[in-house]
């Protein structure tokens, strides 16, 4: 009886111990003035789309920079890790078509994780994936039509989603076979959660500015690493 109670107490104690994992945090900044964004004038070709922009037309969003120099839409990930995907049980991510644009434009997911594509527009879209390592797909989505679901088996960076009806519409989805990645927010900040302690190569990838890497060591209390991109 005493032995059983002791084992039970040990089990409870072990379960209450925090997992040995830390967060990697940091900020991505951009030095220099990025090229001017381009106005999406072809939007005028579809009255359904242009009607949603009675004022100025939207522009490209290649370089999303905060007033403090923080750079958004940078995908930060651990390199050299494979076979650790928890995508099948991860919550789906949503990619919406809104105002004849993809929202968000940059995403990161795991292999096997669902991407739910919505059409919030009053017009037809075709959702066309242009992968390098995965299987290409091209599906119709009518206004008010059912959501489409995509999954990808192979990791690959910046897998392109495009709408051929509206040739200015693009989204890029990086696929990893592990959960250790994040996309920098509007202030350039990112957090990669629950990384087991150890030494890693951390990569920051921007679709236009390329990639940077840093060697880091994650301890029980995590690690901090920032990147500074420069416009050349």
């Amino acid at each position, binding site marked *: 009886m005493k032995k059983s109670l002791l084992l039970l107490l040990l089990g409870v104690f072990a379960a209450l111990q925090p997992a040995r994992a830390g967060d990697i945090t940091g900020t991505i900044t951009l030095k220099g003035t990025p*090229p*001017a964004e*381009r106005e999406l004038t072809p939007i005028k*070709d*579809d*009255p*359904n*789309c242009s009607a949603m922009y009675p004022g100025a037309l939207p522009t490209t969003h290649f370089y999303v920079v905060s007033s403090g120099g923080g750079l958004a839409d940078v995908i930060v990930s651990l390199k050299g890790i494979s076979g650790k995907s928890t995508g099948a049980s991860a919550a789906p991510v949503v990619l919406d078509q809104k105002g004849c644009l993809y929202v968000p434009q940059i995403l990161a997911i795991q292999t096997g994780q669902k991407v739910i594509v919505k059409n919030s527009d009053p*017009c*037809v879209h*075709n959702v*066309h994936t*242009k992968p390098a390592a995965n299987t*290409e*797909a*091209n*599906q*119709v989505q*009518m206004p008010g039509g059912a959501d489409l679901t995509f999954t990808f088996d192979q990791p690959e960076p910046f897998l392109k989603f495009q*709408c*051929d*009806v*509206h*040739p200015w519409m693009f989204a890029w989805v990086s696929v990893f076979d592990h959960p250790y990645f994040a996309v920098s927010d509007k202030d350039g900040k990112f957090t990669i959660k629950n990384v087991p302690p150890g030494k890693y190569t951390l990569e920051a990838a921007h679709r236009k500015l*390329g990639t940077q890497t840093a060697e880091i060591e994650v301890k029980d209390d995590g690690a901090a690493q920032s990147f500074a991109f420069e416009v*050349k």
Partner: protein
Amino acid sequence: MNNKYHPALFWFAVLNVVATTLLIGLGGLVTSHEAGMSVPDWPTTYGYNMFLFPVDKWVGGIFYEHSHRLLASLVGLLTTVLAVWLWLKDPRKWLHWLGIAAFLLVIAQGVLGGLRVRWQMDWLGVPHGAVAQTFLVLTCAIALFTSRWWQNSETEKQIPVPRGLRRHVLYVTLLIFVQLVIAATMRHQHAGLAITDFPLAYGKIWPATTPEAIASYNAHRPPGTIGNPITALQVNLQMIHRLVAYAILLGVAAAAMLARKKLGGGDWLTRFAFFWLGLLALQIILGAATIWSNKAADVATGHVMAGALALLAGSLWWLVAARRTRLAE
């Protein structure tokens, strides 16, 4: 054999040529606007019967792709009627089979286009482009064979065309066909412009294609360039396209000079050879303008159509020259 000229049949064949030429232009607009996959289903259009697809949904890329499909259907119908008409009305057996060949080719072309969409295979766009050019030559040849001029010329005195000149034109025409296949390959790479300057290429006679150079080209592509990052293969392909273009221009210039020397400046074939040379000069200007305009859709489409007409001009020249020689001998 005593042929009888059927004006209605001839003009119907001409109508088919006009529709086919427009269809090639519309196909050029589809690729220039990167709209080939804007209608993901086939033979339906967004689930609708193709012919009942609501006009209010003909927007953006759908407009080009759906119009292309409808015009292709019309060309298919015209070609079917033409094949049946030839079979029933024209006494020439070989022309019956040429009509059947056109019918089979237009069916194959439609299926190729459909499979390109259904199977999502970019490379199928290359044979689709090549068959389009071949089909245009075939329909134009049928129109020529049904013309009053072709049938009446059997009784007229003919001046033979030297074999060397005919061979030269045939080889140049075949080179134009090869050039059109290269061009179709370039268009279906969806990489925009692999080289963004002309007459030099990235400031050089032959650009570097090292990984570092390609990375630099991609990093400094003009703002607004749509398409995938370029590769060394695409840069080399465009350089080959340029070299072959110069070779064709020289070949056609030589053909015009040879025709003037052998047939005389007043001969119809000499004048047509100089027209062909003018067409080639225009084609090179359109090619340059395609680059200078960052592949503006209308300019790039003009380049496609002028290429098709250059192939057609060489083919017709050769056909007429071969016939003249046969009748003279």
